[in-house]
């Protein structure tokens, strides 16, 4: 767990920032790059990216190291996780950034699935943390997304200083543990970093690394170039973005904890209050309560116990815990009764239960639902992702 960040501590602010100088201005000190990603699906992608950051920095004789955020492990499908690359001009400076849980501040935070922009809850007690919680003053948040900066800033909290939001067009690249999703996403992201933050590494450096690798052909160099050319950088002013309502967690001390490693059980009818699995979602199920035949398959097959049973025997969903796995949509026998929709379509609704909306006004509900489906319907065909070159 990140340490030294107990309640009462301010969010990492100027502690490690050289006074008055922002991320891009400082040239000769360590730089930290974070890759925030969907656990398991993007694990190899993140590792690949971290490695390349260090190899690119080597081209100017800098040293580097990568860090896995240890408590993320063992990674679970969909649960947001982080890996880091730290680069520095010399051994002593680099040493100061090693043996760490995670870097105190990040020059660049790369988000490999834009549905994480509305916050991430990686384990119990810490709640849903802002995606940019440890961004350094003047730092860059780089997101793979087909959405605009305005849309993303509806969910990304504001900062008291300026920073930049860089967007590489694209859909998230989801793989798995055994077959690497080799679709050029890694190259596009690297090219984008070189364009948006040449102080981390320049385009020539990363091209040289890719050219040195005999297993990578021209497609990879083209992807590198396209990421470099297509990234758009938006200057975010101080105070721009969503309101930052994140409460730093207050963990109990040894005098307050129960002895002998004991915690209270969940009370009947309630759910685990310390950990909500909702930030795992890339997509969420939306139900047509009118075509439901009350077979209960969704309710019984949900590994996260998200379906309630209403008085009419229908199944409202508790979105605070839904992980968006898609099993319900898969087992439901009625076509299009449950449809999976991209989670960023629900910024206004948040995690709230939509069943009362249907109970109140069925027509309005269906209109709302149809619009969501039209904008963000997700259908998965393949059983595990094969290589298809990213667009």
């Amino acid at each position, binding site marked *: 767990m990140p340490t030294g960040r107990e309640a009462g501590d301010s969010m990492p602010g100027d502690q490690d920032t050289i006074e008055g100088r922002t991320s891009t201005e400082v040239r000769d000190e360590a730089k930290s790059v974070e890759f925030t990603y969907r656990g*398991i699906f993007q694990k190899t992608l993140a590792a690949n990216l971290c490695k390349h950051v260090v190899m690119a920095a080597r081209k100017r004789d800098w040293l580097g190291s990568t860090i896995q955020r240890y408590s993320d492990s*063992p990674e*679970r499908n969909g649960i947001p996780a982080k890996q880091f690359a730290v680069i520095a001009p010399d051994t002593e400076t680099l040493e100061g950034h090693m043996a760490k849980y995670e870097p105190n501040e990040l020059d660049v935070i790369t988000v490999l699935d834009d549905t994480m922009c509305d916050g991430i809850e990686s384990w119990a*007690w810490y709640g849903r943390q802002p995606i940019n919680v440890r961004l350094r003053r003047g730092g860059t948040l780089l997101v793979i997304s087909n959405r605009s900066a305005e849309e993303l800033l509806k969910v990304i909290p504001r900062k008291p200083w300026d920073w930049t939001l860089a967007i590489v067009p694209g859909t998230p690249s989801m793989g798995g543990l055994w077959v690497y999703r080799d679709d050029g996403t890694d190259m596009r992201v690297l090219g984008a970093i070189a364009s948006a933050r040449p102080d981390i590494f320049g385009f020539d450096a990363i091209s040289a690394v890719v050219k040195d690798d005999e297993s990578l052909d021209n497609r990879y160099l083209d992807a590198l170039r396209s990421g470099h050319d297509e990234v758009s950088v938006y200057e975010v002013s101080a105070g721009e973005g969503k309101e930052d309502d994140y409460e730093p967690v207050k963990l109990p001390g040894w005098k307050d904890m129960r002895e002998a490693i004991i915690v209270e059980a969940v009370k*009947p009818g309630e*759910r685990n209050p310390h950990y909500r*699995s909702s930030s795992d979602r890339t997509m969420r199920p939306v139900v047509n309560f009118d075509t439901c035949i009350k077979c209960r398959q969704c309710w*019984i097959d949900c590994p996260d116990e998200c379906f309630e049973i209403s008085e009419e025997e229908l199944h409202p969903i508790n979105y605070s815990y839904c992980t968006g796995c898609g099993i319900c949509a*898969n087992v439901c026998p009625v076509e299009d009764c449950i449809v999976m929709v991209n989670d960023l379509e629900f910024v206004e609704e948040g995690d709230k239960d939509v069943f009362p909306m249907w109970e109140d006004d069925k027509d309005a509900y269906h209109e709302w639902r149809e619009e969501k489906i039209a904008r963000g319907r997700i259908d998965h065909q393949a059983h595990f992702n094969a290589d298809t070159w990213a667009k």
Partner: protein
Amino acid sequence: MEAPGRALKLDPIKSIKKAPAEEFYQSGHRTCQGCLSALPMRLMAKAAGPRTIVLGTTGCMYVANTTYMSTPWVVPWMHTQLGAAGSAAVGTSAGLKALMRKGKMKDEPINVIAFCGDGGGADMGLAAISAALTDIEYNLLIFLYDNESYANTDIQTSGQTPWGAVTTFSPPGKKHRIMQRRWKKNVPGMLAAGHPDTKYIASGTPAIPVDMMDKVRAALSAGGPTYMHVLDPCPKGWHYDPEHSNELGKLAIETGIYPLYEIKDGLCKLTGVTKQIAEGKRQRKPVREYLEKQGRFAHFKNQDYAYFQKKIDEMWEQWLIPGVVAFTYGGPINIAGEEAKIRNRNVVRENASWVGMAGHSHEEFEGVSDEPYEPWRDDNEMDEYPNALPSTGQ
């Protein structure tokens, strides 16, 4: 007969509509999307109900559930070590029994369930499970959730990993494509064959939830030590899109790879689709249909599919009981009769070499009670055995 300390009597659920609505394992666990090892925890707790104590061994259902000082359990739960499912169950059950018998605790049926993964149960903890299954005085259920790897440590081979599967200990490389060359051990069948006093052993899957819950209830109601083994599709370790978890569970059964059965009071029955396959009402789907949907078999070539298919065909065509007893029988005693018999007491043994000899014929034992000898009863006749002095050990 029942072991002292009554087992909780639970009726079978039989249909989804009749499944109890209450959850005794709740939302808020740090499991993968589509985790079909979490679902059996939920279904098992739902079937067992509130008068239950759960012992959880190290593994995914420990680290991903009672994660970082929080818990999803509504019923009381305690951690135990990786290989300790058997011993945790025995210790808990024995403790409760002693207190109830001595009047130090209210005498009531309490379910004792110890769960373990395939790593902790079928590998490290097999000895303890075996020992527990011989302790007929204690009511307990050992519940093994089989996701076919050491999943919590990011997927390594266990004794339940299918032949050829990729794990971090069995990666395909330039020199060796197939690093995992061990065939999956047959655990429920092995335990049933080796522990004749155990009243209930079953194999199920959360992909067929009501059947799984009914088997849990049958185990808990049977009395004495019992065992259940469930197959859990695992999107992380098997590498597939999480929405297909339920579908793959069903496919494992439809291909005949994973059989559903129960052995209750000495009678073995295949259940569900497995039964239909055995009856000839359904053809087994080719194993390829199941294997090719998972990234852990992405490196398979035709020869690998062929080998896998051959092994499954062998299981169905040559095993004494497909999926359960892994060898054929070569005589000399013919097992006669077409109806399945309870504990073979009524089986006529033709050609048995001892027919007619004193002390070996079944007829000799007529009039002797069928109840097993109960050493805990007050009226046991130690006088009859004057030479059986208590041993002082070595």
